[in-house]
C-alpha cells in the first residue's frame, strides 16, 4: 500500500477517495440515462462513452477507497450498498439531465473541473491517486472537447438554443461553489501534497470556463453564496432516485455478478 498512509490518516484518505469516486459514479449514472434517448445516434454514443470512462474512474477510485479503509469492502459493495448519506459527491453531478443543453452545461462545468484537478493530481504524493489521475486526464480532455464543442454550437446557435443553455447555466452555476469550497479534508489533502489546493484549481477553472463561454457567446452568472452539503454527505432529493435505480439489482439479488 502507498507510503502516503504513513502520513495521511487512512480514514481521511478513504473519505477523500470517496469524494472523487462518487463524483464520477453519480455523473456516469446520470449520463447513462441518455442512452437510447439522445437527440442523435452520435450524441448517444458520445454521452455513453463519457459515462463509461466515468464509471471506469469510479471503479479505480472506489476500489482504492476500499483498500485504504481496510475492512474488506470491494468496489461493488461501496458503489451499490451504501446509504444516501454516505455518498460524498458534490451535488452538481446529481442534478437532473434536463434537456440536452442542460446536460451539456453540467458536463462542461465538471469536465473542466476534473481536467484542472487531475492534471495537478498526476503529481500527487499518493502514487495510486497520481496514477489514476494521469490515466483519467487523457480521457477527460476528450470529454471537454466534446462538451465544450456542443456548448459553443448551442450558445452561438439559434435564439432558442442560446436561451436554453444560458438558462441552464444560471440554474447550475450556484452548485459550482461546492466544487471549490475547501474544508478540513481538502486542506489536509493539500497539506500532504495528495491533492492540489482547490483555490489553484478554481483560478485555472474560471479561466478555462471564461474562454469557452466567450466563444459560446454566453454570460457567466454572478457568484453568490450557496450552501453546500454533498461533500459532507447531505444531498438533494435527486440522489435518492438515482440510488434507487442504481442499487436495485444488488439489493434485490445480493452478490449478483455478471
Amino acid at each position: 500500500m502507498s507510503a502516503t498512509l504513513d502520513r495521511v490518516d487512512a480514514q481521511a484518505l478513504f473519505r477523500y477517495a470517496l469524494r472523487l469516486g462518487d463524483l464520477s459514479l453519480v455523473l456516469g449514472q446520470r449520463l447513462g440515462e441518455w442512452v437510447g434517448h439522445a437527440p442523435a445516434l452520435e450524441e448517444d454514443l458520445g454521452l455513453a462513452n463519457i459515462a463509461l470512462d466515468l464509471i471506469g474512474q469510479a471503479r479505480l477510485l472506489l476500489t482504492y477507497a476500499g483498500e485504504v479503509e481496510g475492512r474488506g469492502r470491494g468496489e461493488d459493495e461501496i458503489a451499490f450498498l451504501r446509504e444516501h448519506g454516505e455518498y460524498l459527491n458534490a451535488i452538481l453531478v446529481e442534478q437532473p439531465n434536463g434537456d440536452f443543453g442542460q446536460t451539456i452545461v453540467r458536463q462542461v462545468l465538471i469536465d473542466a473541473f476534473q481536467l484542472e484537478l487531475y492534471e495537478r493530481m498526476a503529481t500527487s504524493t499518493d502514487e495510486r491517486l497520481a496514477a489514476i489521475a494521469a490515466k483519467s486526464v487523457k480521457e477527460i480532455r476528450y470529454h471537454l472537447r466534446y462538451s465544450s464543442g456542443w456548448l459553443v454550437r448551442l450558445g452561438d446557435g439559434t435564439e432558442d438554443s442560446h436561451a436554453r443553455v444560458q438558462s441552464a447555466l444560471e440554474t447550475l452555476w450556484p452548485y459550482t461553489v461546492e466544487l471549490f469550497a475547501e474544508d478540513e479534508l481538502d486542506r489536509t489533502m493539500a497539506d500532504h501534497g495528495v491533492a492540489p489546493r482547490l483555490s489553484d484549481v478554481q483560478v485555472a477553472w474560471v479561466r478555462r470556463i471564461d474562454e469557452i463561454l466567450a466563444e459560446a457567446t454566453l454570460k457567466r452568472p454572478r457568484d453568490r453564496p450557496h450552501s453546500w452539503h454533498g461533500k459532507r454527505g447531505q444531498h438533494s432529493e435527486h440522489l435518492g432516485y438515482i440510488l434507487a435505480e442504481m442499487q436495485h439489482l444488488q439489493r434485490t439479488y445480493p452478490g449478483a455478478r455478471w
Partner: protein
Amino acid sequence: MNSDRRLSLAWSALESVEDPEIPTLSIVDLGLIRSVKPQSDGVLEVGLSPTYIGCPATEVIRRSVEGALRNAGVGAFVVTSVLSPAWSSDWITAEGRRKLEIYGIVPPQQSASSMRDILRQDRPVACPRCQSTDTECISEFGSTPCKALHRCRGCLEPFEYFKCI
C-alpha cells in the same frame, strides 16, 4: 524449461491474443503488454495495461491472456494490471498501425504528448479509401471510446479514426 524458452513461449502466446473489437490486431501490436518477467518465486508476471479506463474489452482481454498463457504451458503465471505510466496510442507498433490501416481504421496521426490542449485542435485526417484530406469529424466518439467517426467529402464514405491518447 529454460527461461528463454519460457519467455518466447509466453510472447508468442500473447501475440496470438487478438483485440476483441479489432480482430487481426494483437494486444502486442497495441502495446498493451508492458512486461513479461519471472519473479523470484518463479511465477511469471505479465504486466497488462488497460487502454481506456472503462473499456469493457479490458476484462475480455485479460481472460484471453490468461487462457493463452495456460494453453501455451508457461507454468505458473500472474497477470497484473499496470496503470502507470498510462497507456498511450504512441505505443501502438508499426505492425499495429499497418494492420489498423488494412482494417480501414486510420491510425493516430499525432504523438499523444502533442495533445495536451486538444480543445479546438484539428488536423485533417486522410480518408483510408481515397486518400483525400477533405474529410470531417462527424462524431467525437465512435463504436468504441478509442475511435472517432469521420466522413470523407471526396468519396462520401464514413470511416473510423483511432484517436491519439
